[in-house]
């Protein structure tokens, strides 16, 4: 009989210890899923913001180069594209909110709560047993066992809900990823078009005398050996004997740099889907009680975040660049 009781206790302990790793794993998954969703959301937000400037850039470029200003139809279509990108940005925000809910479900310590509640509801396990109509006398060790069983049962309920929620999120991830994969060529094209618009407007402005390429030239000059003199550079650009050759070189350098940004933009867009695919794998592992490859996902998120930040930095530099100041 003692052996049977011992076995029952061991079974409970094994059950409880098996369940113990579910919540921490769910917390990690929820955190990484939330970060991944918000990073993709940030990338869409950047496109949305860039589209805001697209028409203005076209209007100015038209004035400087002889092109027609964007037609009302183009303007309306750009607004439609912006609305579509906004919807996808919000979709990623909704996904991040779902991960927040998953995180809340994971971080809540139901087991500890139920132990406390169990103690509050019944001063002793016997009193509670009597209250529910069971006349058996429960000894103190059995009372402790009952509390642990209650905690284990609640943990089991919580773990079941975490896995069910994980499966729901995973199915949604598949749908979102399918959409993103299908539309990826469009996102990449729009991003490239926005970069082209920005570059070409900047070059048109430069050629019209709106700015000076000081940041670029300063970067190329070994300032440890030579000092940079803006007035001297302005003179060389305006009336120096190599004025035309310098202009051509500057255009070439800017175009080369933009081509590198196109590559980065394309990697970013293809990164959306692979990030979500990695998340799907992690959900599957979690649901199957397999260890998560949190490092692989973390590295992918970090690399993706780096690309988003790098592109944002390039844009910020461009926005604050004195090269476009009159």
């Amino acid at each position, binding site marked *: 009989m003692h052996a049977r009781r011992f076995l029952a206790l061991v079974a409970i302990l094994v059950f409880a210890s098996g369940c113990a790793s579910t919540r921490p794993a769910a917390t990690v998954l929820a955190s990484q899923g939330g970060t991944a969703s918000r990073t993709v959301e940030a990338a869409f937000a950047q496109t949305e913001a860039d589209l805001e400037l697209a028409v203005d850039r076209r209007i100015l470029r038209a004035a400087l180069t002889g092109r027609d200003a964007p037609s009302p*139809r183009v303007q309306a279509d750009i607004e439609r594209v912006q609305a579509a990108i906004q919807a996808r940005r919000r979709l990623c925000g909704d996904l991040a909110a779902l991960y927040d809910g998953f995180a809340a479900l994971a971080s809540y310590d139901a087991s500890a709560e*139920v132990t406390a509640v169990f103690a509050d509801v019944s001063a002793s396990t016997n009193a509670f047993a009597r209250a529910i109509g069971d006349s058996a006398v429960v000894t103190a060790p*059995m009372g402790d066992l009952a509390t642990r069983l209650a905690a284990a049962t609640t943990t089991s309920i919580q773990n079941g809900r975490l896995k069910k929620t994980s499966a729901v999120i995973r199915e949604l991830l598949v749908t979102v990823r399918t959409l993103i994969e299908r539309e990826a060529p469009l996102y990449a094209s729009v991003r490239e078009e926005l970069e082209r618009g920005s570059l070409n407007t900047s070059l048109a402005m430069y050629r019209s005398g709106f700015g000076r390429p000081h940041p670029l030239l300063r970067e190329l000059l070994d300032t440890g050996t030579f000092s940079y003199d803006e007035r001297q550079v302005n003179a060389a650009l305006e009336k120096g004997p190599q004025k035309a050759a310098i202009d051509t070189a500057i255009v070439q350098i800017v175009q080369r740099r933009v081509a590198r940004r196109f590559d980065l933009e394309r990697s970013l867009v293809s990164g959306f889907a692979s990030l979500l695919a990695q998340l799907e794998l992690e959900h599957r592992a979690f649901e199957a009680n397999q260890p998560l490859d949190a490092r692989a996902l973390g590295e992918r998120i970090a690399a993706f975040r780096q690309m988003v930040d790098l592109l944002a930095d390039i844009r910020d530099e461009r926005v604050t660049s004195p090269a476009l100041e009159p």
Partner: protein
Amino acid sequence: MPRKTASAPATHPQTQLDVFRSIETNYWQLDDGFDIAYAACKTAAQRKQLRDTLSAAEDAYWAAVADALADNSTFVQALRDDLDRKNADVKHLLENLKSISAFLTAATEATRLAAALARLAAV
């Protein structure tokens, strides 16, 4: 009535992507070559024709992008509605987990089991 769940949109045939690529290439080539072609135009009519051609290419490009993304707008909205519902479900799961009745159910079951074990031990 069962809830309508968003399902993935059908994949566009490759030809549609090819058509889009042609529109894109046409627009970008015309745009890239505009300045040189514009300088080479000898008459106002030629310049107007060049501007009109580029405008038409630009119109076609943005219309193609907007139409392709709009094709999925109903799907995206359905997916967002689905996400909202799922989010509410998850919140409900947590609230339910926090509710005293859920705890009491668990506690009652545990106590019954403990009492049963006590009876077994007494045999």
